[in-house]
């Protein structure tokens, strides 16, 4: 039993969903999503028992490429994030009717497959293939099932597609260069390379471009808000919940260990970039009129902080970043879901057209508020653990980083509560707002449950990821 099982389940699921026809598609997709999540948990169990669940096989002999899926704690954590969020995302779409839903759900599963592959791949080319593969489904999801004016949507989505693709090409160049040197793209072979400082810098920058666009870091973020706004909510959830984490994960897995000298040399610049993103994203979020755009900029702020944490190159920074990635994945999916719930009733995402929902729907408001508070990292939620650890790591580097990064807890509270106040509180809107349905309730409660459980007891995840992060740190520190 090894991790390829999950990829197989998701891929087979994608085809099965497509073949199941429009009526059954959503249920089949949910079934396979749950199966993948179940398989991931079983595999986690095997992994914790010390079994080897990696899968390595020669794929192409010339050039020397392996089909290598390596599962360590970090990969398992990200895999769990993907496989658990996928069924939740699929389930969250049950209230909507999509035309040609078989393709829609098949694409979701396919995207999940590609993202899971990205988290598992430990061969450069395989990783690159999965990385690019994940772009294709989201392109179609956003383009075909998105909302708003078709022309503008197309413009936004094509911009996103070309932008991310262009960034990744530099990564490919870096891989090709390293293949020339190492004769293999297996991660452990690449670790053995002794690259000079200049080479490392170029490789670091090539990776950086790919990741900075994907994460996104300021100033490479311009695709984000418009795509989030135009994509269907499911697509936005996939993008913000999982796909952003691909970039951050890759920083930890690929960029830092392969070019540690450059990372150390220019650490301050990249931490600074992350923190500028935190402040900038928070400030821009203040004056957004569209709920989804606001959340997009809040995402920018959060991932900025995570990125700053990864570039500290400390155990705390990496660990906090991973914890925060998972926490942010859940909370942002929940928040986008609440936007969708409002949209189902009010047919709008403009904050100005909402208001007074709390009187009509107290349950929904409570859950929304909990998600808002989790997003601003209130203690006892999972986000606090991540944010605290990241900020702590920043304070180890320089206390000013912690203070400037910490403005997120002030500004975050400002824009989130302002949004909450205008969207949910105030005089009752004339439009009726039905309270959450059972399906919607289940989804939100699940997410909130996860956030609170790990907020109080993050030890399982910490224990899972720490050994592999330590290993990565030794790789980072192998040259001094």
């Amino acid at each position, binding site marked *: 039993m090894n991790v390829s099982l999950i990829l197989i389940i998701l891929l087979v699921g994608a085809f099965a969903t497509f073949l199941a026809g429009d009526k059954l598609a959503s249920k089949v997709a949910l079934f396979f999503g749950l199966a993948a999540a179940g398989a991931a948990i079983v595999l986690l169990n095997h992994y914790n028992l010390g079994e080897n669940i990696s899968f390595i096989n020669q794929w192409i002999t010339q050039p020397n490429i392996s089909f290598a899926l390596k599962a360590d704690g970090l990969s398992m954590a990200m895999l769990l994030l993907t496989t658990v969020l996928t069924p939740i995302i699929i389930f969250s779409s049950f209230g909507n009717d999509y035309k040609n839903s078989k393709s829609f759900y098949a694409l979701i599963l396919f995207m999940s497959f590609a993202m899971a592959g990205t988290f598992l791949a430990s061969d450069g080319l395989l990783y690159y293939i999965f990385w690019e593969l994940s772009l294709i489904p989201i392109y179609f999801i956003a383009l075909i099932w998105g909302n708003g004016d078709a022309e503008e949507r197309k413009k936004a989505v094509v911009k996103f597609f070309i932008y991310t693709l262009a960034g990744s090409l530099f990564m490919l160049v870096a891989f090709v260069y390293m293949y020339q040197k190492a004769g293999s793209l297996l991660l452990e072979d690449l670790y053995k390379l002794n690259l000079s400082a200049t080479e490392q810098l170029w490789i670091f920058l090539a990776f950086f471009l790919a990741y900075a666009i994907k994460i996104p870091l300021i100033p490479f973020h311009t695709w984000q808000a418009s795509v989030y706004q135009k994509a269907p909510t499911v697509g936005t959830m996939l993008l913000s919940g999982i796909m952003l984490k691909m970039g951050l994960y890759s920083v930890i897995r690929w960029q830092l260990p392969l070019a540690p000298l450059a990372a150390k040399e220019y650490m301050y610049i990249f931490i600074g970039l992350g923190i500028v993103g935190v402040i900038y994203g928070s400030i*821009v979020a203040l004056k957004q009129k569209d709920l989804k755009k606001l959340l997009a900029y809040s995402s920018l702020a959060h991932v900025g902080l995570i990125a700053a944490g990864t570039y500290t190159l400390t155990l705390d920074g990496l660990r906090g970043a991973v914890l925060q990635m998972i926490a942010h994945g859940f909370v942002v999916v929940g928040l986008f879901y609440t936007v969708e719930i409002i949209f189902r009733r009010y047919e709008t995402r403009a904050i100005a057209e909402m208001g007074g929902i709390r009187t009509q729907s107290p349950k929904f408001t409570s859950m929304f508020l909990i998600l808002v508070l989790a997003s601003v990292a209130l203690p006892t939620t999972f986000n606090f653990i991540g944010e605290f650890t990241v900020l702590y790591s920043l304070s180890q580097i320089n206390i000013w980083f912690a203070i400037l990064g910490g403005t997120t*807890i002030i500004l975050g509270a400002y824009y989130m*509560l302002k949004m909450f106040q205008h969207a949910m509180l105030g005089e009752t809107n004339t439009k009726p707002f039905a309270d959450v349905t059972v399906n919607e309730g289940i989804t939100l409660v699940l997410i909130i449950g996860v956030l609170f459980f790990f907020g109080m007891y993050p030890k399982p995840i910490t224990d899972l990821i720490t050994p592999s992060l330590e290993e990565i740190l030794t790789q980072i520190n192998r040259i001094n």
Partner: protein
Amino acid sequence: MEMNTNIALVLVLAPFLGFLINVFFGKSLGKSLSGIIGTLSVLVSFIATGYFFSGISAQPEGIRISLFDWIQISNFNVDFGFQLDQLSILWLLFVTGIGSLIHLYSISYMHDDENMHKFFAYLNLFIFFMITLVIGSNLLVLFIGWEGVGLCSYLLIGFWHKNQEYNDAAKKAFIMNRIGDLGLLVGIFILGNLFSTLDYATLKTAIAGATNLDMYWLSVAAFALFIGACGKSAQIPLYTWLPDAMAGPTPVSALIHAATMVTAGIFMITRLNFLFDLTPDVQSIIAIVGAVTALLAATIGLVQNDIKKVLAYSTVSQLGLMFLALGLGAYEVAVFHVITHAFFKACLFLGSGSVIHALHGEQDMRNMGGLKKAMPITFATMLIASLAISGVPLFSGFFSKDEILLVAFHQNIPLWVVASIASIMTAFYMFRLMFLTFFQEFRGTAEQKHHLHESPSLITIPLIVLAILATIGGMISLPGNSWLNHYLIPILPKLATAEHHLGTTEFILMAIAVVGGLVGIGIAYAKYIKQNNVPTEDAAMTGFSKVLYNKYYVDEFYDAIFVKPINFLSRFFRDTVETGLSALVFGFGKVTNEISYQGKKIQNGSIGLYLFVFVLGLCAIVSYLFLAQQ
């Protein structure tokens, strides 16, 4: 040991359970039942606290309970644990005690509100977080409570959520608190980096055992922690949220914004006294900030017409006095004042709530007056509390305030002068409040007059209890023979030697303070009873009183230098920078387009040209392959 853990868990979780019950079943339980459950759950905590209190003398080192590992940091682990020692038990006693009384009061006060179960849920949640704050064994557990009480404060200030102004006030409170929270976090980070622990006990031994302390970072940490305390305890410059927080229901103001939550900053500094003792610079900053806050808030309180606003500024002013005491190193005095203040200020707030209740929501003192006859119990209890806060001898406030002034006099005469002026003003505005509310003729509408009534016993009983406590509360720390000081010795070891005895100077000072208080009362009497003045309308105010009435325009100032620029920046970023960056990205596309547009002109369709270029290319390749080798 097992027993202690269980009881501690009961202590913490009882209010949480009350919260859960009220949240999920509150509506079906009915109003009275949800109120009773809310009250009982706090009462259970109070009883549990009583258990620990009775056992503490046998165990002076306190009880430590570690539940589980919470957060792992590279150089230390933070466990989720409790520490029940003298300080936390003392705090728990009045938090749960006053909490129970206020819950009881709220059953009646909030009875007409349709969301009463939610009110009790939030109150219970608040008590839960407050207990967590106090009982935690390390700074991060404290931080849970610290943020949690901020959240409950937010929820309760904005309890009437249909009014966006209330929501604004709630948001403001939360955000200003969060500014302080950042300070607290920064302090936590520095301590974590310096000592690799956040646990109070370990921290204490680490600091005591350290040979060469980095004084600079220690001071920075202390200062950052102090900023955190400023946010929570409404000190300059972060005090403006507290008066606005009066938007919440009155029991909330009594519980959160007078008696308990705002004292969290004092608790934290007292808890970390071993740290602050090492940083005299920060201590003097604390003392100065406290004294200035006391004076500033008192001056604003002089002219406010909203009964709750007066009390709010009074709270800020009293908190300033406590910080003054903290800054002077007299932690036990600050703690003493916290306790007496909790009694009389809760009583005052609840009394004002009773008045507001009787007048159906009227809060402007200009529309009150003459309530003495209609509401005798409210009047009597509030009078006692006012006497206490004004420092009239034998009431609790006299002892605590006098000690603060005494300490200030011994250490720093200017601060003593400032504090004395502040307390004279306190006496003035408190009796201004009393005279305007209860004396002379009723100035409200006939409709209101018709409905005037004494509040039901559920409201008056807590008032009476608190009034009694406000009277006799001073007994716990009589000058010369202080039970409190002895009780706190394990926490504040320096005290053992600092017990000052009463001499001539002390008696003179006492007399000055008493005379000052009486002068304040006298001026109020002269102005509002003899001359029968009623404060002017808002528009008619002039000169300095207008500045005071508008709170020195601090809100406007903050608005102009923080809120407006941030909003401007936000619009600027949204409209200009975002568009610019976006245009930059599209620019790449446009350049590519332009190049290809120009490039396609080369493809002019002339086969001759193609062939010519082809031949040239062929020649070039062939000559490179065969000729360029040598």
